[in-house]
């Protein structure tokens, strides 16, 4: 039976709450189901002590989760929009990410920060951002961004079991996506990318909602005889360069696609590494499909004009294979 992204996230949380008494959920409205319904019913099932509403205090609840993690809990914190992660960043950068190091290995921060990113439907400049590049620049953090419900299920469970602070980024456009969870799915290792579609001519590297666009583009391009390999990074920090290298060794052409603004986005790091480590493999410049450098506008025409889409990927791939 198929389930939505939201339902599958809920299932993962439900199972982890049942499996490990150290797991606790917290965040604004989470006991009431959360702003997007991810945690619906979990407080009723696991108790208000395991699934707790918090005040609108992103800084303090991030610290709270961090401190609890230092003392043996495994908190899963929801930050409603990644745009508000700004308020958590002091804690994430200066405390959560550095505790293991600064304590010389004495302490760990096993916590997950679930948050929701991306633009859709006029959420406008302060509720639409893609800020993963900031997080991926922080030593000590792990950053995960699933592209489908089944992937999200497995990655969320792995994240909860990891002894490091994990930023778990969900995309609002994926929430309604449906998939059926296979029985006894193996949990993927955090830090590994997957080949979402095999191909020979051009590699498209994507993550989160853009994997869908990349697959769509691959379909279109297949019809004109261009064979695209799509890599879903899944983990943004650390990057799985081995999977990327294997693909580039085959295709020699790369397009990187993400929704964040191009300038300083994750694609910059990927392109820089490919350009350096795989210099001799490249038959063409590494191209980035990403958002031009502007805030996300409100009006739908403007929003659509700004956001990168499937056609942009198709165009970028054609330009490389032309």
């Amino acid at each position, binding site marked *: 039976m198929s389930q939505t992204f939201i339902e599958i996230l809920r299932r993962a949380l439900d199972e982890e709450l049942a499996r490990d008494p150290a797991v606790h959920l917290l965040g604004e409205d989470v006991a009431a189901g959360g702003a997007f319904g991810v945690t619906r019913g979990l407080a009723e099932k696991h108790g208000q002590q395991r699934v707790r509403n918090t005040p609108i*205090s992103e800084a*303090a609840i991030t610290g709270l989760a961090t401190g609890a993690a230092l003392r043996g809990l495994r908190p899963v914190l929801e930050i409603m929009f990644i745009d508000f992660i700004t308020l958590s960043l002091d804690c994430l950068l200066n405390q959560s990410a550095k505790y293991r190091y600064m304590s010389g290995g004495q302490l760990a921060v096993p916590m997950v920060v679930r948050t929701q990113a991306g633009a859709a439907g006029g959420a*406008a400049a302060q*509720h639409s951002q893609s800020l993963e590049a900031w997080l991926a620049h922080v030593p000590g953090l792990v950053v995960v961004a699933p592209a489908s419900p089944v992937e999200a299920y497995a990655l969320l469970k792995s994240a909860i079991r990891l002894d490091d602070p994990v930023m778990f980024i969900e995309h609002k456009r994926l929430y309604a996506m449906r998939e059926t969870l296979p029985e006894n799915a193996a949990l993927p290792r955090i830090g590994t990318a997957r080949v979402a579609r095999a191909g020979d001519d051009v590699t498209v590297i994507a993550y989160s909602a853009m994997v869908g666009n990349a697959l769509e583009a691959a379909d279109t391009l297949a019809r004109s005889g261009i064979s695209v390999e799509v890599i879903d990074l899944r983990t943004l920090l650390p990057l799985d360069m081995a999977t990327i290298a294997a693909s580039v060794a085959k295709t020699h052409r790369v397009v990187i696609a993400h929704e964040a603004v191009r300038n300083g986005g994750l694609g910059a790091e990927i392109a820089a590494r490919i350009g350096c480590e795989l210099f001799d493999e490249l038959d063409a410049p590494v191209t980035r499909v990403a958002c031009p450098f502007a805030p996300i506008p*409100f009006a739908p025409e403007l929003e659509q004009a700004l956001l990168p889409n499937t056609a942009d990927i198709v165009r970028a791939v054609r330009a490389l294979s032309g």
Partner: protein
Amino acid sequence: MTTALTLGDRKQMYRALWRIRIFEAQVQRLAAAGEVPGFPHLSTGQEAVAVGVCAHLTREDALFTSHRGHGHVLAKGSSLQATFAEIIGRESGLCRGRGGSMHLVDATRGVMGATGVVAGNLALAAGAAWAAQVKADGSISVVFFGDGATGAGAFHETLNLAALWKLPLLFVCENNGYAEFTSREEHSNVTQVSAFAAPYHVPASTVDGNDLLIVHAAAGEAIARLRRGDGPYLLECMTYRMAGHFVGDAQHYRSKEEVAALKEKCPIERLQRHLTGQGVTQAELDAIAAEARQEVLQAVERARADPRPDPATVRDYVYSAPALATS
């Protein structure tokens, strides 16, 4: 200074309440029809705070508001059409369709901005108050925020700064008992938001925010202090949002009975009872409401006919000069 309101003023305010109520009903209606991008937050039931406070403000005064700001912007004098046009994303909108419901700005009327980040612009309002103090032009700054915003550190940092620098800043908390789906009891241990002012020696009061005349009087006194240079004031207005948190909210977190009971408190009905008591006929009241309705509907229709932004302009307004723009 408590401004003495003539009966005419009070009728004007009655009309102002209706304008907001009907305006937001149109937002709701068109949102259901898919014409409103995003997820607008209505102030239905809270209009008396907007009208009561803004009656004391001039164009030179700075106003900052939250995600629930339509009423404040209209009460400050922004055009119905341009405000609606913004909310439906038109080029003729206050912000040329770039901002939307949560980011309304109308600089010429002193509407300095709304924010989608809870408590995100309290300090900006303090900055505007600081600028007013520097310029010594007698203007003040007002910021509207919800009870939930008091959980955010920015509220407390700003209170300290405003107190310390004696800034002409009016904090107006619209305490509607909820932060999204979480009730006040679950997000704060504090009985009254106004209590936060005491440690800072900032004067404060809590009033019935659904009684326009009470809000008007309290705001009048507070603002008079500000204009005298006595420093900030925290005004807590107890109110209730009759609509959901946002358009589309299923409201699982509160009972139908609770909502029904609190409709009693409707600020429009309250003022209506007062005006009736003052001898204003029902016919006249109906006429005022009908006029407001007419005015709003016309503005809405005009806004709907307004042109959409040109996608080619999507990268305008990022920097002061094109040379600074980056791809």
